C-alpha cells in the first residue's frame, strides 16, 4: 500500500499552484456522477454488493491513462486522520470520509483528478484546477468519462440521462463549482445581496466544505444546482458568466473600500496581522478568518515581499487534521490551539507589519 502522505503534494507545493484570477478564485472543480447499470446505488446496496462494485470500478479507473501514477485505495484502509486530511485538501467530500468497507478513492499524482467510488453514487469523478478554469476542468473530466464508458456500463436513460441515486443530480450528473475568496464583498456588506441574486439564477452558494457548512475565512463555493434539461456546456457557460461577474464585483468592492473606507480595511488587516503574529492560543476558525484578511492585505500590497502562497499554505497546515499529522494525532483541542499559534507566529516572523503609510 502506498503511503498517502508521501503521495500527497506538500502543503507548500499545493499553495504554489497558480491559475487565472487566483487572487479571487482559489480553485475550480467539475464532478460527474455515474452509476453502473442494473446495480443498487451505494446507499441501498448491501455490503457484499458494494464490495463487488468497488472491485469492478477501482481497477477500471486506475487503468485510465490520466491515472497512470495514482493513489488507489479502499476507504477502510485509510485512517480517520488520512480521510480528514483528504477533506481538508478538498479532494473528497465529508460524506465520503465517513465511508468504510466497499468505498474507495483514486487520486492522480498531480491531484488534478480525484475519483470517489461508492460515495452517494457508484462514481463521483472530479477534475480539479487551480484558479478560474471551469471549462478546462469540464473538458478534462469529459475526456476521462468518455474513456471510462468504454469499460463500464453506465446507467443511462434516453429521457432522463445519467441515472443517479438522488434525483437532484439526474441528467448530466454534473456539478460545476468554484471556490471564491470574497473578503471585499463581505467587508462592503454586499455579500448577502450577491448570494441572493446568485440563488435566484438557480445556483447554490455554500461554505468552505460544501453543503451545510459556514463560510469560514470569507470563502464561498458557487455551483450549479440543476442537472436535467440543460447541457453540460451550457451549464459551464452560465457559471463562467456568473463567476466573471462575481470576480468583477469583488474587485470593485476592494477598490471602493480603499477609496472610501480605507481605515476600516486597514483596521481589519492590521488586527489580523497583530493577532496571527502574536497569539499564543488560536482556534482553527479564528485562524481562517484572520488569514482571510492577511490574504486581502497581500493582494492590496500592504505586505511587500510576502507571497500569497505563504497565506494559502497556512490555510492548509493550520487545519485540525493537518496539524495533528505534523505533530501527533492525540492532541486535545487546546493543545492544537497552542501549537497552531506557535506555528503561525513562527511563519509570520519574516513578514513585517502592514505598510499603511
Amino acid at each position, binding site marked *: 500500500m502506498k503511503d498517502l502522505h508521501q503521495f500527497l503534494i506538500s502543503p507548500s507545493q499545493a499553495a504554489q499552484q497558480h491559475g487565472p484570477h487566483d487572487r479571487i478564485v482559489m480553485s475550480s472543480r467539475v464532478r460527474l456522477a455515474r452509476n453502473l447499470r442494473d446495480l443498487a446505488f451505494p446507499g441501498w446496496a448491501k455490503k457484499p454488493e458494494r464490495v463487488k462494485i468497488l472491485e469492478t470500478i477501482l481497477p477500471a479507473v486506475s487503468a485510465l491513462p490520466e491515472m497512470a501514477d495514482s493513489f488507489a485505495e479502499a476507504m477502510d484502509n485509510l485512517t480517520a486522520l488520512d480521510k480528514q486530511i483528504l477533506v481538508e485538501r478538498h479532494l473528497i467530500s465529508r460524506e465520503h470520509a465517513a465511508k468504510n468497507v466497499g468505498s474507495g478513492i483514486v487520486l492522480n499524482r498531480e491531484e488534478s483528478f480525484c475519483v470517489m467510488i461508492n460515495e452517494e453514487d457508484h462514481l463521483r469523478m472530479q477534475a480539479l484546477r487551480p484558479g478560474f478554469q471551469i471549462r478546462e476542468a469540464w473538458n478534462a473530466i469529459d475526456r476521462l468519462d468518455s474513456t471510462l464508458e468504454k469499460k463500464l456500463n453506465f446507467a443511462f436513460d434516453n*429521457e432522463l440521462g445519467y441515472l443517479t441515486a438522488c434525483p437532484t443530480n439526474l441528467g448530466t450528473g454534473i456539478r460545476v463549482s468554484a471556490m471564491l475568496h470574497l473578503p471585499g464583498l463581505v467587508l462592503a456588506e454586499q455579500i448577502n445581496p450577491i448570494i441572493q441574486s446568485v440563488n435566484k439564477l438557480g445556483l447554490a452558494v455554500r461554505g468552505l466544505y460544501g453543503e451545510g457548512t459556514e*463560510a469560514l475565512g470569507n470563502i464561498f463555493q458557487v455551483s450549479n444546482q*440543476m442537472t436535467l*434539461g440543460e447541457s453540460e456546456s451550457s451549464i459551464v457557460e452560465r457559471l463562467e458568466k456568473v463567476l466573471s461577474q462575481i470576480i468583477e464585483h469583488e474587485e470593485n468592492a476592494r477598490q471602493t473600500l480603499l477609496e472610501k473606507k480605507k481605515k476600516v480595511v486597514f483596521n481589519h488587516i492590521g488586527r489580523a496581522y497583530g493577532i496571527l503574529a502574536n497569539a499564543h492560543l488560536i482556534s482553527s476558525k479564528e485562524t481562517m478568518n484572520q488569514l482571510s484578511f492577511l490574504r486581502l492585505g497581500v493582494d492590496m500590497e500592504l505586505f511587500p515581499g510576502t507571497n500569497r502562497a505563504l497565506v494559502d499554505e497556512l490555510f492548509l497546515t493550520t487545519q485540525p487534521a493537518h496539524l495533528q499529522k505534523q505533530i501527533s494525532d492525540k492532541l486535545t483541542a487546546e493543545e492544537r490551539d497552542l501549537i497552531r499559534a506557535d506555528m503561525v507566529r513562527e511563519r509570520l516572523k519574516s513578514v513585517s507589519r502592514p505598510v499603511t503609510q
Partner: protein
Amino acid sequence: MQCCVCKEKPATVHLTQIVGEKMQKLDLCEDCAKAKGINDPTSFAMADLMLGLGASQELDPSAGAVEVKCPRCGFSQADFKKSGRLGCPECYQTFAEGLAGLLKTMHKGTRHVGKAPEALRKSRETGDRLKLLQKKLNKAILTEDFETAAALRDEIKGLSGAAPAKAAK
C-alpha cells in the same frame, strides 16, 4: 393559506424563486420556515428545500393503496421519503409517476439534454428523429396532405428498420 410543510399552521412566510422561465412558490408557517433555515438567506437554497418537500408531497400519490416496490431492488416509496435517494437505476421506471412532479420543480426541464454514452448516442439521435417525423406525419394526415404523409411514412420505415427497437420507444 396553510403551511405546505406541516399542513397545520397558517403560512406566513412566502417565497418565490424564478429559475429560467419557471416560478417556484413556497408557503410556510413561521416554525417550519425557521426549521428549514429560511431566515438566514446565506444558507438557504430553494432546491435543497424543494427536495425535502417534494419527497413527501409528490411521491405519495397512492397513500393507502398497496405499497409499490421496485421489482429489481425492493426499494419502496417509504424508503425514498426517509432518505431522498432512490434504490437503483430501475427505480426511476418504478416510481416514474411520482417522480415526474418532483423533477419538474427541481430542474430546468424534464428531458435530458447533453452528453450520452457513445454507444447509445446514435440510437438516441434516431429516436429523437423518429419522434419528430411521427409528429409531422400526424399533422400531415390531419391536414390531409397525403403526399407529404407518404414521404414521411417511408422515411420512418427506413429509420425504424435501421434503429434498434429500444430507441423508437
